[in-house]
């Protein structure tokens, strides 16, 4: 086993699972192309083959060196969290921070950008540790104003309006206000 540990094996298994998933799915489009002898699967399967070779190389390296970076590499990631205290609350905090944007992205279709943005902005500020209500509200409104001012008023960029009432009605109200403002000039 050398310096291989459980996390190295899990990492390798995750990569192999990705490669296996893509390989299995490649049968869905395993069709011939009249003008191209190698077909639609040759390129992705070549990548998967190379990926398997590189995964093996990586495991071989980790068996000899563990997680130590290869000497002379440029742009390597630094792990300065090793000596940090890691209470459960911090893990919960970072876990919430990772998933909150996904919920925001999912909500964009039904709720729309105009209604979802201030809620998301305020939650991000809270998750990053700000607890003073005045600051949370003030900065949220400031960011909202900048974004609405730049993208809606100045650049007229089309943003998701939502499909569910009352969020859709709110977006319609915002756009009506913008129209009136544009007509004034």
């Amino acid at each position, binding site marked *: 086993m050398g310096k291989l540990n459980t996390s190295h094996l899990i990492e390798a298994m995750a990569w192999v699972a990705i490669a296996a998933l893509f390989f299995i799915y490649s049968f869905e489009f395993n069709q011939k192309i009249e003008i191209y002898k190698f077909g639609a699967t040759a390129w992705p399967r070549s990548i998967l083959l190379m990926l398997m070779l590189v995964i093996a190389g990586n495991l071989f390296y980790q068996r000899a060196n563990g997680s130590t970076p290869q000497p002379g590499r440029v742009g390597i990631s630094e792990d300065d969290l090793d000596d940090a205290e890691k209470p459960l609350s911090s893990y919960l905090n970072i876990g919430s921070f990772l998933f909150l944007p996904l919920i925001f992205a999912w909500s964009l279709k039904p709720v729309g950008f105009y209604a979802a943005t201030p809620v998301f902005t305020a939650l991000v500020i809270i998750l990053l540790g700000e607890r003073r209500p005045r600051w949370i509200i003030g900065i949220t409104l400031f*960011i909202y104003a900048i974004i609405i001012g730049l993208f809606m008023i100045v650049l007229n960029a089309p943003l998701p309006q939502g499909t569910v009432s009352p969020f859709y009605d709110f977006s319609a109200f915002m756009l009506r206000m913008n129209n009136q403002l544009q007509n004034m000039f």
Partner: protein
Amino acid sequence: MIENFLAGTAALFGDPITILIFVFGVIGGMLFGAIPGVSMLTLAAILLPFSAGLEPAQGVMLFAVIYCTGTYGGAITAILFNIPGAPENAPTAFDGYPMTKQGRAGKAVGAAVLCSAIGGTASALLMMAATEPLAKWAIRNIGPPEIFALVFFGLAVASSVGGNTIWKGWMSVLLGLLVATVGQDPVGGINRYNFGMTDLAAGIAFVPAILGFFAVSEIFIQAEKRAFGKYNAPKLDVNFPTFLELWRYKIAVVRSILVGFFCGILPGIGATLAAFMGYGEAVRWSKDKESFGKGNLEGVISSETANNAATGAAMIPLLALGLPGGALTAIMVAVFQFHDMEPGPLVFYNSPELIWVVFAAMFYANVSILFIGLIETKTILQLLRIPFHFLAPMILMLASIGSYIGRGLVLDVMVMFLAGMIGFLLRRSGYSIPGIVLGIILGKIGEQNFAQGMQMVHYDLITYLSRPICLILIVAGAITLGTGVYKALASNRTSADQQ
């Protein structure tokens, strides 16, 4: 040439509306490049419908100017926040961000301003002097095999300069290439890996992927450090490098101009690969290789000179052959089409005044980077004063808009945040984010040119490799790859000996 340039200058500065559009392009490109979370592509996507109402020369000139100044602007966020404004600024972050952490942000940004201006201006001059002969040379000597060979070489360079090991560097690149296979295959148009989702048939757009891997993952990394009490605010410093400090890197600048210009000429390659190659060559020729990635000013200089040197060169395949060299030049093709024109050799004969207005505007845009950039930079550096918990939601919101605007799909916002999560986990494990991004960008180009090249040589590998430029690039890529693998195996042996 000088007469044409003067005529272009007169047309550019002789009309107040054209001047306004030029100034808007210069400032807009710099700002959108320098605001973390959005990029010049966001601005270009928003402005595209408006360009239909402009004169053809004004429309094309506006996007050419945004390309020049936006490429520079993206360096600022790469240096200050480790969030490259565009993929071509990714190598700038390798040394630029460590310099910010060391309190040398001013030096890095100052060098980026000057070198972007030098690279861009030199490229604009070369473009004006040699567009036609270079286009003729490119038609004769550069085909799909050469482009594929350059993509291979570029990916080999990218894998060798990112990630904790050569293996992780390659795994990152291969992941990017795999992501690029999602959507229709470039030869037969067969749907691949869309997992039953119609929106995925068009593939994964690279703007959301780039924003996710660079901007969102960086926010997550900093948020994690904050949660564990290890967050250190970047240090503010507005001391620019002196002329003597920069003079030491004159050879790196010249080398990067040549590398950047060569990459820019090649259709489909553009400034991103130029920046990686410029950086890679700087590392290769340096006597102090170990200092790269730890705050070596030469890293910033090489990358920024090369990517701006590619901007002028990228106009050559666009204007002379009608082939875009990157995302922004692809948008410029749409601007031509809005006005019932097709970029290509005929433009030089049918609309020479348009060509020279664009050339003159690019020249002046690069010169203005130096003056406006230095003033703007002093202001932009103040962004470092904003506390992270106020800056982060702003960046996330801007990135959401930036990823949505390109295609108007909520799926792209989802892709961006997923890419951010994956990028966060991969960065924590020592993988290379620039490698993934370069894989995504070059994947389709590589596959398309490989297939076309193979069809050209009737699937005969010997004929494929008998093309001299192709052979040189493949060999150079193989040497880069072989050296990296050899070093990794050598470190295995060293570890075994120590045990």
